[in-house]
């Protein structure tokens, strides 16, 4: 199977980007290029700037310094061509809205000025719900959902606009291991059509679908294979390494051994998939 990573069109470009909240620096002189068709895991310690990085790329936060391009344009111009699944947050649980209507809100920006959503748009939303296995719950109120169901609903909302690039912030939180494997398989399939960028603090969660890794801890380091080397780990996490290494017998990568030959079976493995 030919690798989809062969394209050389950059979808994300950051040049000398620095960002700080008030005076506390979060990201410093970040340079990063992500190419079309990649499947990127953004890892790093909590508070290291992973979510900030994603929000900068989506235009939700403006860096004090540097250049940001998403799909070749400034983020405010192009963010609606991206799909975004935010970190699962509690609160606002009583909001009176049904699952289908949440997904329809993923069409904001491309929907008409007409006050209500049209039939074809509802059909699209149902297809997105079907993809994540939530169609039977489409008329349920959001506050009747479990955490995992809400995650899947928010994924459908991110997918309904047929995005060119998909951002997921901690998509595996609230999902059991079986569900995680299923979700990764779905993302792997979606990756045939779109670039996928997801944030995780759990390095155990690098599935075989992942093609490259971005380490974020104030600085950013791009690693063009899904192998995590001990050097990366030490460099990025230092002494206060909060990574959870979960080995649960699934085809997930965990930290490579010391002196592991670089990218030994990385490519051959991908080709046989």
């Amino acid at each position, binding site marked *: 199977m030919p690798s989809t990573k062969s394209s050389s069109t950059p979808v994300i470009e950051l040049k000398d980007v620095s960002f700080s909240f008030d005076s506390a620096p979060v990201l410093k002189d970040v340079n990063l290029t992500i190419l079309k068709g990649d499947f990127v895991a953004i890892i790093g310690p909590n508070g290291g700037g992973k979510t900030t990085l994603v929000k900068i790329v989506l235009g939700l936060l403006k860096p004090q310094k540097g250049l940001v391009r998403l799909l070749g344009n400034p983020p*405010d111009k192009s*963010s609606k061509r991206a799909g975004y699944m935010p970190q699962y947050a509690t609160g606002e649980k009583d909001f009176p809205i049904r699952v289908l209507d949440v997904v329809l*809100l993923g069409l904001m920006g491309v929907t008409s*000025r007409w006050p209500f959503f049209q039939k074809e748009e509802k059909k699209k939303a149902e297809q997105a719900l079907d993809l994540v296995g939530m169609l039977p719950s489409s008329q349920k109120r959001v506050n009747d959902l479990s955490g995992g169901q809400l995650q899947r609903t928010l994924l459908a909302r991110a997918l309904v606009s047929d995005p060119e690039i998909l951002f997921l912030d901690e998509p595996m939180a609230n999902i059991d291991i079986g569900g995680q494997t299923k979700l990764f398989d779905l993302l792997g399939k979606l990756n045939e059509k779109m670039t996928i960028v997801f944030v995780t603090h759990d390095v155990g969660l690098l599935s075989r679908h992942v093609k490259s890794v971005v380490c974020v801890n104030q600085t950013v380091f791009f690693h063009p294979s899904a192998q995590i080397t001990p050097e990366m780990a030490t460099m990025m996490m230092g002494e206060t390494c909060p990574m959870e290494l979960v080995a649960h017998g699934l085809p997930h990568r965990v930290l490579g051994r010391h002196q592991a030959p670089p990218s030994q079976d990385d490519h051959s493995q991908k080709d046989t998939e």
Partner: protein
Amino acid sequence: MELLHLPFIQNAICAGILAAIACGVMGSLVVVNRSVFMAGGIAHAAYGGVGVAFYFALPALPCIVAFSLFIAFIMAALTYKRRGRMDTIIGVLWAVGMALGIILVDLTPGYNVDLMSFLFGSILAVPHSDIHLMMALVGLIAFLVTCFYKDLLSVSYDREFSQVRGVKVVPLHFLLLGLVALAVVMTIRVVGLILVMALFTIAPYLVEKYAGSLAMMMVWSSILNIFFVLSGLFISCRFDLTSGATIILTAALFFIVFESGAWLLRKLSI
């Protein structure tokens, strides 16, 4: 029942229904946005508009409309970014608006008996001319909320996601607060600005847990508000009580009965 033929009762019923609808619609948006304190700030700062109207001898309602919109837009400009500090800014505007109103009324020569009606409402004294203005305001609120329904829903449910989708979140923040100001002003005549919050919160809070959509929440909140206003009005006439306070206590009583009923049902079904 012959009371219904009295023109001032008819005006009161019209004004009550119009205010109930405005508060049902905007109260729903305020409650799902967790901006009740902001609505309270606008309601109280609106008293500054009363002061301006008295001092410059201007027509009251248009003047309060303009002043409340002014306060709402200042609030919107100060809060759209620093959402964490919103409560402090609202508190400041709340106090300053009221103080301004009181000083201007002090400086106005002559004793103003009518003043209390703005604080505690005087639904039985609503002039016929105000009904037309109220109708126009309800029409405007309904029109704008319908036009921007998807956008308001999107921003209320998930502001950041809306921004990614290219929804103009800042203009919508101004629109929301502006509409809140209009609804508050309308309600001043009916229950007074001190008691505005009850019509904004009680019905939407009751409905929020059961409504399937924001639109249904608005509809049911309006219906409940109409029920509160009309039954409160009837009780106040029957027992010769202050109308605004009676309306609020009617709503509160319904709230307590409903919530304890729901609580009992939950207990029994477990």
